């Protein structure tokens, strides 16, 4: 650990921000096209973020500010840990549990700040978001657990590297097809895309946790959202779709995966939160458990291509 790590880390943050924000802009266009609209400019997301950063803001006390900083800080730290095409700013810290729980710091910070605003809608939104998290995380974690057991490694980078060199057949999503489906469904939940976006329902609870944010706080939230999206998509990409041997492959796969979720989301209605829980605990959980049992007891999918 030396200064270069931190420089790399910073550069990763900048690069990720630019990449993901652009991609978000493009995906806004994709959504618009699905709706037969022209859509926003590809750089619209940047404009939105910078505009928000430019505006004045209101604060509801120190925890409102502190939570925002803690959220962004935690999320940025997590981003630094994500291995991108074999590159890690801090090698060896890409343990999947570390990533998934460090992600929670950001979420907790955001939740804290939102609830600290004193607006009940924010609390309702946070409550829904946490419920949503409980719903999608269990099936996903079971599949990831199976993977760790099967490959004897909990390092995201290593798990990604193991899938490379065999083309599509090497991907865990293909080796563990049920697990792959679970992962994509869970990704929709993680990203808060439809049909799992009831926690930011704008008309019902005035965008939930975001209700009191304006100005730079809102800008922070947007940046945070970009980073969070990157972490979540990267996690699924690395674990189930082989990451990328090169940065270009990685970006391409990433874009395809992310756009895919956007497209699914574009044609979906919205689940109520309890429906989301029920859904996740019915279909994906069953698939995840079946997948886990198959892999643990038969080794099918792990050894079959070896």
């Amino acid at each position, binding site marked *: *650990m030396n200064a270069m790590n931190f420089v790399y*880390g910073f550069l990763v943050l900048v690069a990720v921000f630019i990449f993901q924000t652009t991609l978000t802009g493009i995906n806004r266009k994709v959504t618009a096209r699905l709706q037969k609209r022209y859509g926003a400019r590809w750089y619209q997301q940047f404009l939105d973020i910078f505009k928000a950063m430019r505006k*004045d803001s*209101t*604060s*509801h*006390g120190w*925890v409102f*500010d502190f939570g*925002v*900083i*803690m959220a*962004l*800080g*935690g999320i*940025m*730290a997590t*981003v*630094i840990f994500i291995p991108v095409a074999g590159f890690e700013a*801090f090698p*060896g*810290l890409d*343990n999947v*549990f*570390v990533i998934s729980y*460090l992600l929670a*710091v950001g979420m*907790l910070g955001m939740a*804290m700040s939102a*609830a*600290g*605003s*004193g*607006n*009940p809608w924010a*609390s309702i939104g*946070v*409550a*829904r978001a*946490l*419920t949503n998290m*409980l719903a999608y995380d*269990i099936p996903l*974690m079971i599949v990831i*657990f*199976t993977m*760790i057991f099967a490959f*004897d*490694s*909990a390092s995201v980078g290593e798990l990604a590297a193991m899938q490379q060199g065999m083309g599509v057949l090497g991907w865990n999503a293909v080796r563990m097809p049920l697990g792959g489906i679970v992962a994509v469904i869970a990704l929709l939940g993680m990203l808060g895309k439809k049909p799992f976006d009831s926690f930011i329902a704008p008309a019902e609870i*005035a965008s939930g946790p975001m*209700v009191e944010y304006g*100005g*730079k*706080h809102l800008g*922070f939230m947007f940046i945070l959202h970009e980073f969070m999206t990157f972490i979540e998509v990267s996690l699924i990409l690395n674990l189930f779709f082989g990451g990328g041997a090169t940065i270009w492959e990685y970006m391409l796969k990433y874009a395809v995966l992310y756009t895919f979720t956007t497209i699914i989301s574009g044609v979906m209605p919205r689940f109520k*939160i*309890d429906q989301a829980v*029920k859904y996740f605990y019915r279909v994906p959980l069953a698939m995840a458990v079946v997948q*886990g049992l198959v892999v643990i007891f038969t080794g099918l999918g792990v050894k079959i291509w070896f």
Partner: protein
Amino acid sequence: MSIAVFLAILIILAAASFFVTAANKKAGGFATVAVSLFALAMVLSMKGSVGGEQSFMYLGFSITTVGWYFSVVMLTAYSMTSFFNPFWMKKMIYPAGYNFLYLVSMAGTIGMFFAGDFITLFIFWETVVWSSAFIIQQGKSRKASYVYYVLSAVGSMATLFAIMLAYSVSGTFVIRDAFTGLAGSPGTALVVFLAFILSGLSKMGIFPFHVWLPEAHGSAPHTFSPVLSGGLVKMGAFIAFLSVTAFPAYEIFGDMLKIMGIPAPIYFLMLLGALSIIIGTLMAIKQEDAKRLLAYSSVANGGYILIGILMLDQVGFAGGMMHLMNHALASAAAFLAIAAVAYRTGTTKMSEMGGMIHRMPVTYLVYLISIISMAGIPPMGGFVSKWLVFQGLADKGLLFIAAAAFFGSIGSFMYVFRPLSAVFLGQLFTRDKDVREVGFFMMFPMVVLTLLTLAAGVFPNIILRVVTEIQKSAGIEPVTLARNTIVTTNGFLDAFRVFIVFGFGFAIAFVLFIVRRKSRKVGLMDTYTSAEFIHTPELLHYSHSFYAPFERLYDKAPDTMNMYKKISAGIAELGGLVEAVFYGGKPAKTIFWIMAAGMVFFLAGGVFR
């Protein structure tokens, strides 16, 4: 100093504190602080004499690393909580009795952890049970104390049975020898094992014995709940530890049916642990009272500890042992924070307060950090230990248990956030406008526990080194530790670096935040309400039925307490029947039964000879 003398001194000091309290309540409270700190210092200094064996009359002691470790955990909880005692004395109905029992139960735990034989262990175990049962009744509920005592008794009786059974086979009570004679008879061994660990399960609040925790933790005096959750529950972990080490469970059950390499009885207990994680989590989510909520979280965390210890391997075991410390620190701190709030507001109901952060910021931070640790989020201690448990589970491929562990982990975000949001964040109630932060003396233990939690998360190896010693003494391969790194088969964790990177991210965010223009401060009531005018903070606070949609999914689930109520009603019904049948007022009834007994004797003598 020998343990017996040490314990005798503690008992004498306890008696002294009784009389001091009788003379002056506040002074008595401070006496408990002094005595418990003295005990902590003594135990800390005892690290060097590990390995010694002592006996005093019929009590036998042996100083082991694991006993030392547990004692430190326990005394940390006791000594830190004791700082609250002086301020609650005036609310106690028996302040002198409280202080006396507080110190007696503390001495009892030390004696139990350093016990060299099972009789000593049992004696001190029961001492703790009754002394704490009499403390709990001084809180909000008498029923709680009753439930606590009865469920503890279930465990104690089973353990006594196991001890005596083992004694009848091996002829000794000495912990390290008593169970070894059982290897020849797996059937007896199974009975002994299950009966012995029962007290651990009931103490840790493992399903189906978890019902006492919410009752007792929730209604014990506010100054005792931290000890209960942070300390006494860990006695169960000690029993679980003995069950797999002193009782060489993996060896004795080596020939039995194995599930993923785990002998079936142990796997079954792990499943119970998993079940308690799930039940603890689900129940914690729907509690309305902060202390009850934390109590259910103790149930869930007890599950992690049990699973970790039962794995008895390189990684998971270390995780379980470390989680015990982390949970003790975090849970004691969280309970203390709630106690501090209750001290100022007089309630622990989450829907009756809000926005305490604006009045008690330090308490808020204490609570925040402890719940972060409890939920297993870096960079706090709880993360490291949960990480170890996860790694151990992944290593063994225990899918269902791991699923429960994940459920508990994610679910804990839900329940720890609820008091955070309802009590500390949100609207400040009109009633609590003039509430102040607690004084330094009460703040001190909370801050110390918080710093310890943080230290455990950043430098976990300090604790893990002790754990490796325990692992060595238990005869298993210790977890591999490098300078700041914990190495497992599936990967490694450098908690310090994680912390630094987290700090780095935080610093960037902070800089980004302060370079932008300062925000306009507005009041809490100035929030978006669809332009509706609301002037009552209580109405603008979301705290009741926080997770209503989620709770609806399982609100019809059966309640374990009903099972106990049914058993209790069944016994009472039997009693009623007996009373009516045998103890009626008239001689005729008795004569009839005498004649019936005569028939039985006649048959016994004549027919079934």
